[in-house]
């Protein structure tokens, strides 16, 4: 099925201007987003930013103070969860302990007036699909964490929901199982083509699984985009530091289009990264990811090169993280980090207290309003 081409499928789930307060505390502030049919959207943000609340509003478990929720052409804003046709998987899985895996999966089907043989067939197919074949007769307590999670997922998709909602579905599992299940859930979701919203606070999970990511902070949606867009072009310093690491160099002053003065140095930025609205002579923050900070011997005097002192060298497995002290003139110094392959460290013979030229590629620097 070609989903992108079908116009009806774009904006299949539409969430508009949601506001939600608990007492005087505003948990969601004017949140809007859309999801195409078959898309996996990940909601990412720090603890307490309102991810779960957003999911519960979409599910119909919390009533929004204002705003609307549409699925297809149905306005679900005032519907209870039982009439929204959503599948939901909680962090705790909430498997019924007194029912076997089979019975858990069949639970929602029983009320749908299906024939027993049809239910059996459907449950078998789901067990097969989620790699639970042969485990159907076990009780949840007799299954491993990963298996329980798969039963929960099967139970949620058994009733063919329009929207699948996952609240931190993998956070109760250990790291290895988590990585494996990430892939499995993603494949399953794509095979079924079910529109999915997954809440997580694990950026790696979001980056590897999602078609698009919504980044939230303090009840507000701060950025949405593909994993690539979010990583490469974080819209705010918050997003930049929340996803991956980011070096910030404050106290920059805009001299001209693409030219910034940092202390006694001048740094050029290509493309301006949407910061055209910063006025000349006004303050800015420059940012660059550690993997983009280059250490170049013998390239002094070139544009965007500043000499820095090596503060610390930290072993990180495949690479080293080098702490650098960047003099900005006078006594002002900025600490930044650079990620470098081990091979380069030994080739350049880099050691602590060494002074080396550091290069900031113009197309890798980002600019934020101070």
């Amino acid at each position, binding site marked *: 099925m070609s989903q992108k081409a079908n116009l009806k499928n774009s904006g299949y789930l539409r969430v508009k201007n949601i506001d939600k307060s608990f007492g005087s505390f505003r948990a969601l502030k004017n949140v809007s987003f859309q999801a195409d049919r078959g898309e996996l959207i990940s909601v990412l943000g720090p603890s307490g930013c309102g991810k779960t609340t957003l999911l519960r509003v979409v599910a119909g478990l919390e009533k929004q103070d204002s705003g609307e929720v549409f699925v297809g052409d149905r306005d679900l804003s005032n519907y*209870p969860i039982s009439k929204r046709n959503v599948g939901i998987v*909680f962090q705790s899985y*909430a498997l*019924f302990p007194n029912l076997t895996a089979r019975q858990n999966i069949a639970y*929602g089907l029983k009320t749908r007036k299906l024939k027993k043989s049809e239910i059996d067939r459907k449950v078998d197919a789901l067990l097969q699909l989620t790699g639970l074949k042969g485990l159907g007769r076990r009780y949840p*307590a007799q299954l491993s964490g990963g298996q329980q999670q798969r039963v929960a997922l099967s139970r949620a998709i058994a009733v063919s929901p329009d929207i699948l909602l996952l609240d931190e579905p993998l956070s109760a599992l250990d790291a290895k199982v988590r990585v494996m299940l990430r892939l499995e859930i993603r494949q399953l979701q794509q095979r079924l083509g079910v529109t999915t919203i997954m809440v997580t606070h694990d950026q790696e999970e979001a980056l590897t699984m999602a078609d698009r990511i919504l980044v939230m902070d303090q009840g507000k949606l701060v950025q949405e985009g593909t994993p690539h867009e979010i990583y490469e072009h974080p819209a705010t310093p918050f997003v930049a530091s929340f996803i991956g690491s980011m070096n910030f160099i404050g106290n920059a002053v805009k001299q001209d289009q693409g030219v910034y003065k940092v202390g006694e140095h001048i740094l050029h930025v290509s493309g301006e990264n949407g910061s055209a609205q910063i006025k000349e002579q006004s303050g800015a923050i420059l940012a660059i990811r550690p993997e983009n900070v280059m250490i170049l011997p013998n390239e002094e005097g070139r544009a965007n090169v500043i000499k820095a002192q090596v503060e610390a060298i930290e072993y990180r497995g495949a690479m080293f993280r080098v702490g650098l002290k960047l003099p900005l003139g006078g006594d002002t110094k900025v600490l930044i980090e650079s990620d470098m392959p081990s091979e380069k460290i030994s080739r350049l013979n880099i050691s602590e207290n060494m002074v080396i030229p550091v290069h900031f590629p113009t197309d890798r620097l980002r600019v934020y309003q101070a």
Partner: protein
Amino acid sequence: MIKTTIAAIDTEKWIRYTMILMVCIWLAVVVVLPLFQLLSKSVVDLEGNFVGIANFIHYFKTPSLFNSFGNSLFVSVMTTIFSVTLGFLYAYALTRTNLPYKNFFNAIAMMLLFSPTLLNGITLVYLFGRKGLVTLGFFGAIPGWNIELYGPVGIIISEVIFTFPQAVLILSVALRMTDARLYEAADSMGASGFQTFITVTLPGIKYGLLSSVLVCFILAFTDFGAPKVVGGNYNILATDIYKQVIGQQNFIMGAVVSVVLLIPTVIAFIMDRIVQRKQVSMIAAKSVPLQPKINRFKDRLFLIFCGFISLVIMGFFATALFASLVKVWPYNLNLSLDHYNFNRMGGGGYSAFFNSIKMSFYSAVVGTAISFTSAYLIEKSRGMPLMRQAAYFLSILPLALPGLVIGLAYIFFFNTTSWNILGFYLPNPLNSLYGTMAILVLSNVVHFYTVSFLTATTALKQLDREFETVSESMSVPFYKTFFKVTMPVCLPAILEIGIYYFVNSMATVSAVIFLYSADIPLAAVAVANMDDAGDIAPACAMSVLIVLTNVVVRVGYGLVTKGIRARTEKWLSK
């Protein structure tokens, strides 16, 4: 448009809303309104005119009435001191020493929970009464010892026996909860045993200690059975209420004394609620269980102590059983079942016994159903916070009400044929319940409601909050999940509540003594009446029957439900 509106109606929510509302209304009708009626009777004169606190002034100015208040306080405080001290030592031995046969010692203490306070009194009469075993020096074998049983001494001993297992229960929980790491820290700082006790043990169980003090006080302060048997001429509030109402037919003064009884009880009750809330927040923190160190001297000392207490308890039950079986105490000690032939006696005999079983069974079924369903609705519903809080508060309230107060309030409430509200006569639709089995069952359901409700709530809290949500998301109606998941998983707790209702309904006398009618005699009431008439041996026999029934039911329940409990444990093990 209309279709959308209909689809948007959250039927489930409305059903739940209605049901919680019904819980509130039901509790208002069976608890608040009767209580209100009782309170209002305490401020009117015999003609029903409002007289403010005149009745209370009269009460406090009349020494024969007011003395009882001091007497009640005295016996309850003494009981509390003995009970908590002994209970603490016993619980300490069970939790903090290497006492052998801990299960046995625990079971012996818990045996006392089966003993109605009437039986405590009667057994004491056989031990320390005018012709008691000890008073006569074991039928002349050794010099006799008269402890002046009738009066405060007898009441206090009976109440200590009654409250001791409660103190052991509460204090064992508190002692078990303390974090072992604190003791390790104290050890590492070289604190002596006594220092550790003062600085670690006592602070660690302060809430448990307070709670046991309050609970023992309330139980002793409001008990009716023991003082009825061994009180003699020593008046206390509980017996005063009975005498005012049954003896003198002075219902107004009965209501006044009830209020006097109710006030300290409610205060102690509120304090206990606060203390328990604090204790719960303490349990929430993770703690490492303590492994008692081996200390020969200490372990021996506690073995002797527990051995002694157990012997006393077993001797106590043996005396009761023996006394019910001898022909004529203390002159003819040949065994016979004569006293179990109640036909010659007043009080109803075996029909009373079987009525009691019937009543207890109905109370168990109805009480369990209502308390569990209410706990479910309150615990597992989303939204409606105010209604749920109101329902929760009303569910806790009955615990503060002594049985006598419930009984008297029910007389007032259900005996009224109509109320005069601002000149309008509102007939009482519940009046027809008066004098029926239904009102007896109802009084038991309410009397033992709170403990059942809290047991159910605790069990429900252990289930995942999202069971309901997940079912709803699959459009499965909530009652289906209630029957298919919630109830099966909570089955052990449900059965436990049923047993609790049965056992207590069998033994209770305080509420039902006001409410039974001549054509529905009850076993526990028969005990009181036979004792009144001086037929103490059959009274003892009937009490023994009550205790035996409860033991059989409890043990049978344990055997029958072993499989169920094992199955549930398997489900819930992670």
